[in-house]
């Protein structure tokens, strides 16, 4: 089930971003991207800033190690990574 609003209720700037991603990738934009671009002030914006800092910011762990942790957690959550 996909909420209609998250499927096609984006505001214009996000609609354009989605259109470009679709043209460049040649396929349907992933749900995670659609979700992050839906009402970005409410969730996607601050969440992306945090994710960026945690996954790519300064850390004792390498980017590869962090991606591995994320993949492992997704696996435990039975969520596709």
């Amino acid at each position: 089930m996909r909420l209609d609003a998250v499927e096609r209720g984006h505001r214009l700037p996000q609609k354009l971003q989605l259109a470009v991603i679709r043209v460049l990738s040649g396929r349907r934009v992933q749900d995670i991207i659609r979700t992050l671009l839906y009402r970005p002030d409410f969730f996607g914006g601050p969440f992306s800033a945090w994710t960026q800092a945690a996954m790519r910011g300064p850390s004792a762990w390498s980017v590869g190690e962090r991606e591995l942790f994320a993949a492992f957690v997704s696996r435990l959550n039975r969520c596709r990574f």
Partner: protein
Amino acid sequence: MWYVLLAIVVLAAVLLVVRRQRVGQAAGVPRDELVERVRAAVLEGPGATPAALRHEIDARAAAPAAVGAPDVPSELRELVDKVALRAYAVTDEDIAELQRAGYTDDAIFEVIASAAVGAGTARLRQGLEALEQSRGGHHAP
């Protein structure tokens, strides 16, 4: 046709740069603060549902299996617990039920985001505490 495509690509490139800069501004901000920003946006930002309801959902999702877990309106209980404990089990019917109960897509989006944020930040805190203890109370570099 090509002009339209070109215009879209240029516009999108500009938007991506703007976005990147915004993300870049977060560089140097402590991660605790970034987490608090997510929580503030989802739990207190303008929305279709009252902030008080989102806080209730957050509190329940942080301890859904606990005895005497904070309660939420009965029609939301199952979805909140599923999102918190086994999000893969959420079905079309769970969503359709809330739609029938009068919840708009925006309201459902907010309920799910609040539950995810509640469960997610609770686990994050547990993880950081475990890490702290294993280091004998020393802070991470």
